[in-house]
């Protein structure tokens, strides 16, 4: 467990020292959402109607863009091979890196989301559910994205390829994340959607580290 947290701490320290990386994901998130009122027009009703979807799509893209570097820097400077040699299962290493990724990008997105919901004129009933759905959904995004990030290692094609692989797999999270918020705004119970999001997370939690560890082993062969 100590080794696990030491990897998490290492990744957090790297992210914080380089400073901008995790901040950039949030900035991208904010700017992408802000583009919508400019593109669609500032009518409050339209914005309120699309708010949940826009915020979720932007969160999806922001977390995907930051995933590209999840293993790549370690792969390039060789530290990934040292992590593979650690007396810790590679699955746990992946889990540690995903945890650090979520703390540096997922968490800031969740903090920024209510602010953007205000800008998008979202109905007040949706706020808490939006945050709750993001708390359940963004870890799944980081986990699924880790598989994609491991698969593209060494291809030298980074972002575009990653989006092609990962975005189709993000769709279920998007659908239920948005429908939870929409249900809350229209006054329907949201328990089912949140439970499904939780189920995705519980399924991704064991499966994704396992798969991305397999992909990493292929990449390092």
């Amino acid at each position: 467990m100590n080794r696990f947290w030491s990897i998490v701490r290492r990744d957090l320290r790297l992210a914080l020292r380089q400073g901008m990386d995790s901040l950039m994901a949030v900035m991208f998130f904010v700017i992408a959402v802000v583009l919508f009122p400019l593109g669609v027009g500032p009518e409050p009703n339209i914005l309120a109607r699309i708010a949940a979807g826009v915020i979720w799509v932007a969160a999806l893209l922001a977390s995907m863009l930051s995933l590209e570097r999840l293993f790549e820097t370690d792969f390039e400077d060789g530290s990934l091979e040292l992590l593979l040699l650690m007396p810790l299962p590679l699955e746990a290493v992946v889990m540690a890196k995903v945890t650090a990724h979520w703390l540096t990008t997922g968490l800031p997105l969740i903090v920024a989301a209510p602010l953007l919901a205000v800008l998008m004129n979202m109905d007040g009933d949706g706020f808490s559910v939006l945050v709750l759905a993001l708390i359940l959904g963004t870890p799944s995004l980081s986990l699924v994205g880790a598989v994609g990030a491991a698969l593209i290692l060494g291809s030298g094609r980074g972002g575009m390829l990653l989006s092609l692989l990962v975005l189709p797999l993000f769709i279920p999270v998007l659908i239920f994340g948005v429908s939870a918020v929409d249900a809350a705004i229209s006054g329907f119970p949201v328990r089912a959607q949140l439970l499904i999001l939780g189920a995705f997370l519980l399924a991704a939690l064991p499966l994704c580290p396992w798969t991305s560890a397999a992909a990493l082993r292929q990449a390092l062969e």
Partner: protein
Amino acid sequence: MIQKFANPARFIRLSQALLPWMAGLTLAFAAVGLYLGLVVAPADYQQGESVRIMYIHVPAAWMALFCYTAMAIAAAVGLIWKHPLADLAAKSTAPIGAAFTFLALFTGAMWGKPMWGTWWVWDARLTSMLVLFFLYLGYIALVNAFDNPARGIKASSILVLVGFVNVPIIKFSVEWWNTLHQPASVLKIGGPSIHPSMLWPLLLMALAFTTYYLWVLLLRLRGEIIANKIRVLRLRRVHGQA
């Protein structure tokens, strides 16, 4: 048993013998199926003549799922037993499956315009078929993304297995979410709820599509094996001269 077919030379001989059969069966099934479907089968009392799109649309959609399942099985065999032909089979199936998926989506849109009054709706089955199409495209992009072809095949084999979760979702989408696309009427408990005059051409077309898939798959596999041979020969010549 599986290992026996891992030998490319044996596969080339075997496929040489099978190719004419597959081609002949495809043409025969398609000829009879199209005749029954386009000429003999009655027009639908509600849908009129456009019901005949079904004889292409439904087999194409079946094949889209069948090809992905075949890819997943081939990828698993390739990963577990390091079976070289299974790896190549997964790689060669992808473009065929993508083509079937596109055909299903395209013919669906052609049928949807007169019947539903719209080319496209965001219905559960349509959306999940579209996702399947993206999964095929992602696979094809990943398999070709690496300088080392072996690495591309291994990485994309893992991707196929991850994406396989979508297949049961597509199959059962019309039962889980009661949406615009009609539920299954052929493969269901209690037998098909479709008249034999329409069922026969449908099944024949499905057979024709399956043999067509096997035919093209054999051709593509032979092409892959020969391309590998050419690569090895070129490398050998370069090294021989150096």
